[in-house]
């Protein structure tokens, strides 16, 4: 609980959470924010932003703003869905490897390191290419299955140090089953690592989904930010001067990425007090300036 209270008193976290909350609300209330359907032709091709079409229209005459607010649903769903899967696999494998040790650890560690050195995006491209036009769900699933390695590595190394603590030792003495120790003694101490892993994975999933779709591996009928980029690029939006078509999803992705990154940075500061700068340093600087003391 304290970690959540600390998050609320951290300036970076508050800005990040606010951004995320706005995107979530936009996604939920998309039908109330725009009168247009994201998949219907509602105007002439490539109209500039105007009162009728706030962010202009695409080459096919779709309303960019409508596609943007509906597209937020896909980005968030893929981001959080895949992020959850990545974190779940990474945390479970990491705790098991770190706690069990021995052969189990060696096997998990070997595969983790192997996945880490095979470049992720090229691998995803091959997978997606064979699948054909991947729907957002398929993209989320393959992201979940291929991107857990980093999480295993950090969770494992943290588990290794927690395993040595007294309360784990005493639970072992009391003969608690190892799954209980892993779930109730070790996991609660990994909360901040898991949190960082989760938000980091969400950022990764949002970016990667958009990238795969931009490269033409997504399903072109999806309404998502990545497909918007893909369509705009295919329509040579920049060279015909329809910058709104391309820049709108760019801006949305950048804002969501920034919000999530701020939350991640804040969790890092809370988990590791040495990284914290905050109020005390400001007060310290002020006191030195007015001659209350020195170093």
């Amino acid at each position: 609980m304290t970690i959540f209270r600390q998050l609320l008193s951290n300036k970076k976290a508050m800005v990040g959470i606010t951004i995320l909350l706005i995107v979530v609300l936009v996604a939920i209330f998309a039908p109330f924010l725009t009168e247009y359907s994201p998949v219907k032709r509602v105007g002439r091709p490539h109209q500039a932003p105007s009162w009728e079409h706030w962010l202009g229209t695409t080459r096919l005459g779709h309303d960019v703003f409508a596609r943007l607010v509906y597209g937020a649903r896909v980005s968030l769903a893929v981001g959080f869905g895949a992020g959850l899967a990545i974190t779940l696999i990474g945390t479970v494998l990491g705790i098991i490897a770190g706690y069990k040790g021995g052969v189990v650890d060696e096997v998990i560690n070997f595969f983790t390191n192997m996945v880490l050195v095979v470049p992720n995006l090229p691998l995803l491209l091959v997978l997606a290419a064979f699948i054909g036009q991947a729907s957002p769900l398929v993209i989320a699933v393959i992201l979940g299955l291929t991107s857990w390695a980093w999480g295993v590595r950090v969770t494992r190394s943290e588990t290794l140090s927690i395993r040595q603590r007294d309360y784990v030792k005493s639970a072992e003495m009391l003969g608690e089953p190892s799954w209980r120790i892993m779930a109730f003694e070790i996991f609660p101490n990994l909360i901040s690592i898991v949190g960082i892993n989760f938000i980091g994975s969400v950022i990764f999933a949002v970016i990667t989904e958009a990238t795969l779709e931009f490269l033409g591996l997504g399903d072109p009928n999806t309404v998502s930010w990545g497909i918007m980029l893909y369509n705009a690029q295919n329509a040579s939006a920049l060279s015909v001067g329809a910058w709104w078509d391309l820049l709108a999803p760019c801006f949305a992705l950048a804002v969501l990425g920034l919000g999530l990154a701020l939350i991640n940075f804040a969790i890092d500061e809370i988990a590791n007090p040495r990284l914290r700068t905050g109020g005390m340093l400001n007060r310290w600087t002020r006191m030195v300036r007015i001659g209350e003391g020195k170093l």
Partner: protein
Amino acid sequence: MTDPVLSIRNLNIDYIGAEKDFHAVKDVSFDIAPGEFFGLAGESGCGKSTIAFAVSRLHRPPALIRKGSQILVGGRDVLALTDDELRRFRWREVAMVFQSAMNSLNPVLTIETQFYDVLKAHSRISRAEARTRAAELLKLVDISPDRLSSYPHQCSGGMRQRIVIAICLALNPKLLIMDEPTTALDVVVQREILQRIDVLRKELGFSVLFITHDLGLMVQVSDRIGIMLEGELVEVNDAQTIYRTPQHAYTKRLWASMPKLHGEQIREGAQS
């Protein structure tokens, strides 16, 4: 009486917090005479290391030495030194052995470079001269000059701590501060190192400020002892008085909480 090597008057140190400050050292005053072995004891977190850091002004934000505090080393006001004067003052006047024996040496530099660093920072000296001087210093602590080209990880914990002591002696400081220097070492090595310090002190004439939570060990080596409790210096007396007739209730409690030691004396005359 001669002028003290270290004179601390009304020292107040706070750790600044976002809303409230932590008052770590409260109005502490004491002196250390030339050649004296002075012990500072207390539980962990009582502010004794905070004092040690303040003498060389090694603190980092959010620590704050409050105005009105005074630290004199050889009569010089340490808190009034400019950055450049402070740099020259450090190690030449006050050298320091830190808590963790394993971790006081830079793991990526050779022992020789770590001697050279300090000699070059304080005098004009060639690499070759520095090497000769470093070899001499290592001899003082019974370490072969071959070790100069080693890296710290190639030396044992006790050896590393002796190397740190040799580096401390490089500039003939007036005062050697030892901040729990032996906590990470086993008892045998611990005794050996304190004996060595005692011999060197008599030979070279520096004073020692020795900080530990181990009062039993401290009584065996110190001339005078200060007892700290929650940032305050509650009792200062010669070692024998502290041992036989402690005045302050807290000192008595400290003794009561400690298993009686019957180890052999580290130096003659510490307790008779």
